[in-house]
Every structure is written in C-alpha cells, then in structure tokens.
C-alpha cells in the first residue's frame, strides 16, 4: 500500500526530471510522453485509491516515511495521510493535470520551450500531490511553496514578454504576504501544540482551545486557536486569491492558457480551500475565524465577479470568475459547510478547467488574439469548442441540472441557514453573485461565439476547429462538468456515511448541511425545486441580461457605460486595489528605500563612517607629518624632552 503512494507522488517528479534535464536528448515527443505517462500512472493509482478508500470505505492511511528534521523536542517527518479528503483531491488533481498535459501537446505545439513547459507542469503536479497527501504542516507547506514556485515559473513562462515576468513576480510577491501569515500560524502551532502532525494537533485542539489564550495587546486575551486559524487563513487568502490578496490572479493570465486552467483555476488556487477543509477540526473551535472567513469569502464572491463584467480579455473574464467561485468555496467553509466547499472545488475544477481550455482553443483558433471585442460568431467555425464551452458556462452559471448548480446551490442554501455572524451579508453577496456570475459568463459566451464576426478577414479565413489533442480534453471535461454535481451531491453532502468520511469535522451546532439534508429529496427533486428559488431566477436573469445587451441590443453596453461613468471607472480600476498597492506599497517602499539609500547608506555610512574615518586620518596625518623634519637636532630635542618628561613623571610618582 505504501509503495502505491510513493509511486503516485513520485512518478510526476520523475517525469519532470527527465523532461527537464534530458529535454534535448528525448526530444519534444519524448518530453510529452514521459510526463504524460508519469501523470497517467498517478491518475490510475489515484483512481485505485479512490476505489479502495472512498468507495469501499477502506481504512485511512497515516504513516511517516522518514524523519526529515529532528531538533531537540521537535520532529519534522515526511509522512502521508491518505483519507477520504486527500484521495478525492488526488483524483481531481491528477485528472485535470492529465487532461492539461494532453491538451498542451496541441496548445504548445509551436513553442520553443516545449520540454521546459512539460517539466514544469509535471513538477507542479508533484508539488500539488505532496501538498494534498502530507500528514503534517511542514509537508503541506513544502507543497504549498512548491506550487507557488512552479506557478511563478509558468506565469513568466514567456519570459521575454514584459507583462508575463511582472505578472509572475506579482503572483510570487502577493503570495509571500499570505505565506507570512501561514508561517506565523505554523510557528504558533509548533509553540502551543509542540507538534505539527495533523492527527496530534487535532487530538490536542479542544484542550488547547479551552484553556490557552494569548495576549497580542496587553490585557486582551485571544483564543490561541482563533489566532492560529486566522493566520493560517491569511496564507489561504494568498494562495486562493481572496480579497485583498486576489490581485495576482488576473495577472497570472499572462501565462500559457493550459496553466491558467490547471494551476490558476482547477488545482493550486484551491489549495487554500483544501487546507481549511483539512483543518476543519481546528476551525470548528473558533467562531471568530469562521466569521472572518465567511466575510472575506462573500466579499470576494460578489465584488470580484462584478469586475469580470467589464473585462474584455476572454481569459481575464474567466480569471475573475475563478476569483468569484473561490469566494463561494471560502464562504462555504465559513459557514462550516466544508463538504460543500470541497464539492464546489471538485465541480469547479471540472467546469473551470473546461472553460479555460475552451478559451485556449478559441485563442488558438484566433491566432493568439484574446480580446473578445475582436471575436464573435465563432460557434459556426468551432462547434466542438462551442458546445463544450457552453456546457462549462451553464455549469458555472449554476443552471440546473449542470454540476455547478448543485454545488453552488448547496453553498447558497447553507449560507442561508447559517447563524454565523456575517451570514446575512454573505447570503446577500452569494445570491447577488449568482446573477453576476451568469451575466459575465454569458456575456463571454455571446461575445465570443454569437453575433456578427468582428475579426479581420485574414484571421477569419484561417478559423477552424482545433486539433483533436485540444478538443478531446474539452469533451472529457464536459462530462464531469455536466453530471458530476448530480452524481456527487448525495454522497458528498447528505449521505449518512459521507464521501469525505472522518476527514471533515463539523460541530453539531454549526452543522448547516445536516439541516439542509432534511430538505433533500434526491437530485432531480432539487433541480425541479430550484425553479421556485431566488438564485435560479437571478441566474436566469443574468443570462437574459447578457443576451439583451450583447445579442439583441449590442449598442446598449456603451450607453450604460456612458450613463454610469463613475461606476465603470471603479470597475475598470478594479476598485483601485492595484492603484492602492502601487501607491502605498510599491511607491512607498521605493521612497523608503530611496531614503535609506540616500540618507542612511550614502550619507551616514559611506560618507560619514567610511570616508569620514579616512578623512580624519588624512587630516591628522597632515599635522603629524610635520614632525618628521629630518633634522637631527629636532630628534635629539624630542628625545631629551621625552627623557625629561619621564624623569618628571618618576619624580612626581615617588
């Protein structure tokens, strides 16, 4: 059993190393074969584990492979925790990763960095597997940083493009801010629990939560668990792109499209969701942290979605929708519906990967044109891409009975039932978000695939469906995008023996999913019942508005913009987060650095201390050198005066 897990985790690394270091020897075909086989082995093994552990309800595996660091009282192991949650994640990660590998054969076909690309995505898969299988915080963090690194490498994959390198840098730096919280949280865990092993931390958690407080400011004791949870969640905010650390995700779209699908939609950005779900025994002990998560998630879900409505780059629209959907997942975590969060993570991985890969197929057809204003009417030329993209869009817009409907509706209902502080605001945000989601999604669909073609004749003459390596993953992904929700909602959320098993701990007093389960009468009843619910009509309204504005009356958007210029300005500026950061952090840091450079470094240290001591010696020696006259009688006199002084001194002493 252990060998299976080692093989599962290490095969992508092997593929990555071979493709990375032996790229020129094995050639382009060799690079994609070796990595696809590596990830394929992982996928097959993940499915086996899924069968063994989730479907046949096998025992949870928790073992340490070897001791990595042992220092006095602390011990850091490399170990694996294979339970229902991590196996579910393994299947999602390896499935999407495998499809993206295949897709990349077509998408990266003409790229000179072909082998490098495959080495990177395989390395990413390895890191992600390490992240989800780790049985302690240390390994989680290793994977966490590993995926961050590969994300950086892949965003700036086209390193000669300025926007790509700065986008990569931005992603890396913003993630550092989150990691700062993460590291502090891990340090706090090590301090108060004395271990970083998940199982032992969870075992001690209730006792620590009940007794240990910590005063950040004098005389205000805080629950240690709250502090730890919030700090760790700050890490998740960076990785899962929650407000206000969401700013890197839209920039990450400068990377190749398969990367946007794999890393910045389906897997890496969900690492934060996974972490909070994994640590649910800890989070359940702190209602303060849950409220914080809830408010952040709801804010992200609504407000980043609104920005998506004014974007014209097809990838950016999907990027903002990713932000918004991540907000939904985080909101679910905030109301203790961890399973619903993971469920939405799963369906989102499928339909968002599909949408990104579909967008990639469009971009490929349009010869790397990403501006939707220059598209239109593509449905005729790219039928497979169109149909699969439409399935993804319907799923994203939560139209029943597509996957996204089940997961998102579960979240909305869970928020509705929750009594957590902030739940009312969150309910408003997620319901309004349903409208916005449908609006920007179908805006993208209509602008890209319907209406009159707006591209130039040259591009138009070359338009055709992408090669099979590109559309095959789309078709494969369209299947879970359509049916995964209906298949999984019962076992995942409402079964008495839930799919995530014992991995998720929910305090009975927060257990909204259980309440929700009493109203659940099968998937079809849920879909049928949705027509009398608010979110459904909001979603339909979103689609309708998109249709009116982009098909029926295409000149209306310009009119609306004209009449609400300030609103448009705010949205185009993305609420000014970037400008604020630029003004305060970037320029502030630059100004401060300039101050330190000019005043502290150049004036005080260089001019004052270094050159100053030199100058002092020089001016002193100007005087001292006059003493050396070369006249013997001067020396004689000096000697005699010296002798006299010594004599005098001796006389005075005695």
């Amino acid at each position, binding site marked *: 059993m252990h060998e299976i897990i080692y093989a599962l985790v290490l095969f992508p690394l092997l593929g990555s190393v071979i493709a990375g270091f032996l790229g020129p020897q094995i050639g382009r075909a060799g690079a994609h074969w070796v990595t696809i086989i590596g990830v394929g082995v992982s996928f097959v093994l993940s499915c086996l584990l899924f069968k063994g552990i989730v479907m046949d309800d096998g025992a949870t595996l928790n073992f340490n492979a070897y001791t990595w660091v042992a220092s006095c009282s602390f011990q850091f192991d490399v170990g694996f925790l294979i339970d229902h949650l991590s196996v579910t994640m393994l299947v999602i990660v390896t499935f999407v990763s495998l499809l993206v590998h295949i897709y990349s054969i077509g998408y990266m076909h003409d790229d000179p960095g072909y082998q490098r690309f495959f080495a990177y995505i395989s390395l990413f898969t390895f890191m992600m597997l390490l992240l989800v299988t780790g049985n302690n915080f240390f390994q989680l963090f290793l994977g966490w940083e590993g995926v961050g690194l590969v994300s950086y490498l892949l965003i700036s994959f086209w390193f000669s493009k300025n926007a790509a390198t700065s986008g990569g840098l931005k992603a890396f730096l913003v993630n550092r801010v989150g990691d700062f919280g993460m590291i502090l949280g891990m340090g706090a865990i090590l301090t108060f629990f004395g271990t970083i092993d998940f199982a032992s931390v969870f075992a001690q958690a209730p006792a620590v939560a009940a007794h240990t407080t910590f005063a950040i400011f004098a005389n205000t004791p805080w629950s240690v668990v709250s502090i730890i949870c919030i700090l760790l969640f700050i890490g998740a905010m960076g990785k899962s792109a929650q407000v206000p650390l969401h700013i890197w995700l839209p920039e990450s779209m400068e990377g190749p499209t398969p990367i946007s699908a794999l890393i910045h939609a389906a897997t890496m950005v969900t690492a934060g969701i996974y972490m909070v779900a994994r640590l649910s025994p800890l989070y359940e002990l702190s209602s303060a942290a849950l409220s914080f998560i809830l408010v952040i998630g709801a804010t992200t879900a609504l407000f980043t979605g609104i920005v998506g409505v004014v974007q014209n780059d097809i990838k950016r629209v999907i990027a903002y929708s990713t932000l918004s959907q991540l907000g939904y997942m985080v909101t679910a975590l905030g109301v203790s519906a961890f399973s619903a969060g993971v469920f939405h993570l799963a369906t989102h991985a499928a339909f968002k990967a599909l949408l990104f890969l579909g967008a990639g197929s469009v971009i490929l057809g349009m010869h790397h044109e990403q501006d939707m204003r220059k598209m239109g009417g593509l449905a005729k030329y790219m039928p497979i891409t169109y149909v699969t993209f439409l399935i993804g869009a319907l799923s994203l817009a939560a139209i029943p009975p597509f996957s996204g409907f089940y997961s998102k509706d579960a979240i909305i209902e869970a928020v509705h039932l929750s009594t957590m502080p902030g739940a009312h605001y969150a309910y408003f945000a997620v319901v309004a978000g349903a409208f916005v989601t449908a609006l920007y999604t179908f805006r993208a669909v209509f602008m890209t695939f319907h209406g009159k073609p707006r591209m130039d004749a040259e591009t138009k003459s070359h338009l055709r469906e992408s090669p099979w390596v590109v559309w095959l993953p789309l078709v494969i992904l369209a299947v879970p995008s359509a049916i995964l929700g209906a298949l999984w909602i019962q076992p995942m959320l409402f079964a008495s023996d839930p799919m995530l098993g014992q991995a998720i701990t929910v305090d009975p007093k927060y257990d909204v999913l259980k309440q929700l389960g009493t109203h659940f009468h099968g998937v079809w009843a849920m879909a049928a019942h949705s027509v009398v619910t608010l979110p459904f009509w909001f979603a339909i309204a979103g689609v309708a508005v998109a249709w009116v504005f982009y098909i029926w009356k295409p000149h209306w958007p310009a009119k609306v913009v004209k009449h609400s210029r300030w609103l448009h300005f705010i949205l185009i500026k993305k609420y000014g987060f970037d400008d604020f950061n630029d003004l305060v952090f970037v320029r502030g840091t630059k100004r401060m650095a300039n101050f330190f450079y000019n005043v502290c470094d150049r004036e005080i240290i260089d001019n004052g201390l270094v050159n100053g001591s030199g100058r002092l010696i020089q001016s002193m020696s100007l005087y001292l050198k006059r003493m*050396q006259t*070369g*006249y013997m009688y001067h020396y004689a006199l000096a000697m005699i005066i010296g002798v006299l002084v010594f004599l005098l001194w001796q006389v005075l002493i005695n």
Partner: protein
Amino acid sequence: MLPIADVLIVTAIVFSLSLVGIVLNRHNLIVLLMCVELMLLAVNTNFVLFAHYLNDTAGEVFVFFILAVAAAEAAIGLAILILIFRHKRTINVDDLDLLKG
C-alpha cells in the same frame, strides 16, 4: 672637599650648554660633534664624582668605557663628516635633512 651639589651644578651647566649647542646650532656639523663630546664629558664627571663619594670604583670603570666609546665616536663622526662634505659640499646642519627619508 668640594660639596657634591656644587660639582653637580657645574656638570649640569656643562650638559645644558652642550644640549643648547646641539639644538640651536644651525650651521656647523663640527660644533655639533663637539657638543656631543662635551655632553659625554659632563656625564663622565658625574660618574667620577659619584664613584668618589660612594667609594665605588664601578663608576670610574664606566668612565673608561665611555672615554673609549667617545674616542671611537669622534673618529667615526669626523669620518662621516668628511664623507658628507665630499658628497654634499656642505656641513651646514640645516641642509642635512636626509633622515626625512
């Protein structure tokens, strides 16, 4: 018997004169050598004086040594003087600042 203080005063005066001669003399290297001899003589006189008063012959032995060294020194000093003169065509002390390096 001369009082010891009187003799000491005389030798101190001789020593001081020679010192002044060394420091103030700016022209003639020979004067400088003479002053050095005079200094040694003042010191010798002191040695003899103390040897006599303390009834210790060690002081008189020192005088012999010093006289021998002084003789040698005078010989070498004059030789150096001649060489300097040959070399620089002057024995003016103010021009001899070779020790400056």
